[in-house]
């Protein structure tokens, strides 16, 4: 580990997804210095990997890339990517954070993002940006519009063939790079640590992640993305264009059997949206959504749902009891249709998407004394006065770190957390 470097800022934001970026921009615009710390190699969070977003159907990149570019060009916003927060301590002057900057094995100041290393690398790996649907090289820039445009070498998979080192025109591959320890002093903290989706294995009855044509909702986002892994929608087992696709709602929410009794707020709408996009790209396919309640509660969402129904998407009120497959890996759902008296029946689909719910991404808050709710999301200390406040003075929260929510609600919360942070900075004058 190399020596400590020290940075000072007004506001330290943990997470650079849409919540973190929006808060950074708002605080930066108010005249304060911000540092964002991001564990992934690029800023942008989950949103940058989505296809299009409801209810406007803008491509997610069209909304996220400008925010990414704006925060990376903002004179008062700095980002540490590929960096983990080790711990944060409250001090008399505010907070002190210890960050570990993970090695990319590339000399960042020298790299010109020419991608020659990536082209020359002989090792193919599963691409986590495509949620396992595509491949990447052992050294690669994480995705087209990543910020920064710096490659990361996967040390555990690299075969040390030095192909990349040989082609690099700037000689900036460094196999011996070590993690770097960084200290950041800040007056306020914003927790924008985001979410993870409930694991595919969470519900054994739904195949537990074993059935090849049962995919996750984030994989479905990539299939539908304009620059996705295949450029079209293909099912994983045989590359066939699926003729019938089903969505299983509440596959990881409203389900006490897996310890997630709450509603995840976004799954109904993303399923409706994906169904609309699918019916656009596969007009002959049959698309069915098995649901309990369609929760289209946001502005313009009911109209969006009505539009989906008018497009011929089948909405079936049914609970899915079990998912299996036949020999061709077609997916078989055992369902109880509410309208037909809950008589169990079996239906077959080419591909099934599980509408998974949202779990908190971070639960320990780096040693900060932060009150959580019973599901480990950050709890608001004054939900009826200013919901961005947490139990520790000077620490604010926004987005899915404090509960499942959609992008518009997340952006509202980011602005709110920024307002609280800015006014706190004005009041403390430290």
């Amino acid at each position, binding site marked *: 580990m190399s020596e400590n470097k020290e940075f000072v800022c007004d506001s330290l934001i943990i997470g650079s997804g849409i919540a973190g970026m929006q808060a950074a921009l708002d605080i930066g615009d108010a005249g304060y210095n911000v540092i964002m710390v991001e564990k992934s190699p690029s800023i942008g969070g989950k949103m940058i990997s989505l296809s299009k977003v409801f209810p406007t159907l803008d491509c997610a990149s069209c909304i996220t890339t400008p925010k990414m570019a704006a925060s990376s060009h903002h004179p008062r916003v700095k980002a540490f990517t590929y960096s983990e927060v080790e711990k944060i301590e409250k001090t008399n002057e505010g907070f002190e954070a210890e960050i570990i900057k993970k090695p990319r094995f590339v000399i960042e100041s020298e790299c010109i993002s020419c991608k020659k290393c990536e082209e020359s690398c002989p090792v193919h790996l599963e691409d986590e940006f495509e949620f396992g649907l595509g491949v990447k090289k052992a050294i690669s820039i994480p995705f087209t519009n990543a910020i920064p445009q710096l490659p990361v070498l996967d040390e555990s998979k690299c075969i040390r063939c030095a192909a990349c080192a040989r082609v690099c025109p700037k000689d900036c591959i460094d196999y011996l790079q070590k993690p770097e320890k960084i200290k950041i002093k800040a007056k306020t903290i914003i927790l924008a640590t985001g979410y993870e989706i409930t694991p595919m294995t969470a519900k054994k009855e739904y195949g537990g992640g074993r059935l090849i044509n049962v995919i996750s909702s984030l994989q479905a986002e990539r299939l539908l993305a304009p620059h996705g892994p295949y450029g079209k929608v293909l099912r994983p087992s045989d590359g066939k264009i699926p003729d019938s696709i089903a969505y299983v709602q509440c596959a990881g929410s409203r389900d006490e059997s897996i310890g997630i009794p709450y509603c995840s707020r976004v799954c109904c709408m993303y399923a409706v949206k994906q169904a609309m996009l699918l019916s656009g790209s596969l007009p002959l396919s049959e698309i069915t959504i098995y649901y309990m309640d369609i929760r289209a509660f946001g502005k313009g969402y009911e109209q969006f749902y009505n539009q989906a129904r008018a497009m011929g998407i089948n909405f079936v009120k049914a609970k899915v009891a079990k998912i299996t497959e036949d020999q061709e890996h077609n997916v078989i759902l055992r369902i109880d249709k509410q309208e037909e008296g809950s008589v169990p029946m079996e239906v077959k689909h080419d591909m099934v998407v599980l509408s998974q719910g949202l779990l908190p991404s971070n639960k320990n808050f780096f040693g900060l004394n932060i009150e959580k709710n019973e599901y480990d999301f950050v709890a608001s200390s004054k939900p009826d006065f200013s919901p961005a406040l947490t139990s520790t003075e000077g620490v604010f929260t926004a987005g899915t770190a404090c509960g499942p929510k959609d992008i518009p609600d997340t952006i509202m919360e980011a602005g*709110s957390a920024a*307002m609280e942070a800015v006014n706190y900075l*004005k009041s403390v004058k430290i």
Partner: protein
Amino acid sequence: MSEQITEKDHTINENYRQKPKVAVYVCHCGGNISDIIDVKKVAEELSKYPNVAISREYAFMCSSTGQDYIVEDIRNNGINRVVIAACSPALHELTFRGALSRAGLNPYLYEHVNIREQASWVHKNDKEGATLKAISLTKAGVEKILRQDPLNSIRVEAVRGVAIIGGGIAGMRSALSCADNGLDVSIMEKSGSLGGNLNRKGKVYPSGKEAFEIANELSKKVLSNPKIKVYLNSEISFIGGYVGNFQLNVKKSDGKFEKVKAGAIIMATGFSHYKPQKGEYGFGLADRVVTLPEFENLLENSGEKALEISGKKVSSVAFMHCVGSRQIDGIDAPGKNGKVNEYCSRICCGSIISSANRLKEKFPEISVFDIYTDMRTYGMEHEKYYKKASENDIIFFRRPLEERPKVEIGVEKVNIKTKDVLTMNEEMEIEADLLVLGTGMEPNDISDLVEYLKLPRSSDGFLQEVHPKLRPVEVANNGIFLAGTAQGPMDIKETLQAANTASVKAAALLSSPDIPLDPFVAVVDEDKCTGCGLCPKECSYEGALIMIEKDVKGKKKKVASVNPALCKGCGACAAVCEPRAINVAGWTLDQFDAMVEAIAKE
């Protein structure tokens, strides 16, 4: 990453005086454009066009790499004008202006050509045609930018104060945040007290707190804050001015008028509960049919022994969801505006379930029925209430989306007939002593304010933001922000968050003494102006364009005069000016001529 101005920047800034060197960038928009349009061909065709020095295509021009190309070409390749063929300028015009500024070039020496909405999306079945159209449009863009002068944003001095219309929790939260930020705040409230819809007895959902306690916590702080002035029982008779300099004529409780000045306005005008029409589910036909707020009041004021309505003991209550929400044209009767409320009011499912639970917990012997279609108890705490309702033996009926229950008023009971999905669409009959209508939210009637400020409204009647993700609390009019349920249904927590977001934007806007505005406003060539006076008659913006008498080259002359802060650059004046003496900067008639010619040439 601070950007220092160097010698080189000054040279670049002056570069526009050199022979034009246009760079054209064609964006793939990650497939949105390149799946239909042959972007390579567009870039290639443009590279042959006169005055084009560089022509490139790239996956995402808006990404950091895309912007770096622009900066690089300006700084190192002598580019002095830029055309970007991409998405809608509404999305990324500001992004690219930023890139030009960073490179040291005047940010208005760039033209944004929309080949997504205007070509790839609308001509997806004609790839060749779409490509040709993209080429024509981009060539027109080049012609336009060749005739572009560098422009500078107009700077207007700003009053460091915010006027907040509405004294509910959204207005109060915004007021406190703005005041803490150092701004002077005025709250205009039409009623006699702060608190809005929370100024009542009864518990709110999901916190279970007393409504008035939430309002009181905020209002105590508001009333004791020296930076906040509250006008109760006030009326706004007019709002004029523009961003940085709004002027509100306020009729105060004593009948006297006061002029309130503000740099920004926050619209926190809130909602009203939907009022069912007479006969809608039996409403207005008997006192046994009440709205949810009326029921809340009834429950709150009932004794411990029994719930009574008009002196009679109630032993069964039915709740009806989606009254005034999720309405369907042709099935539900339109409201006063001639339209049905298609939207979901977001909070009613939760509020109904919470009320039903409290009823059951206070009077366990009362039978409670709940007629719903989708149970929208979204969010973490909310689902618990729903589960509790089942444990409380509340009996649920699920009506099909397009069916409406029929309500008959009996001698002593209310009779409700509904189809029930939960029992194989069987027709069910429910007899209840009391029917509670789960009424939704409607925007308050603010048609006068909408008129004064020319505010946009969405199809559901609520105020309309520019974009739900890019600019969620701003309206198209500069300096006006939305807070809370004026924009759409929200619960308490969501309202407070929205109010804070409105405040952070207002605070940023007013953080410097002057506000930059777009320079696309009418400009008068006083030599050419004949003083005919036709143009002010066409102008729709009060005070933006007037005739004045002034000295022009030593001669007294009548000429048109523009107030750039009020002009919206619509061009109505330019259309009637025969000598072409008035033009909108950045959109001159000469530019239009050249663009049309470039397109018509093909």
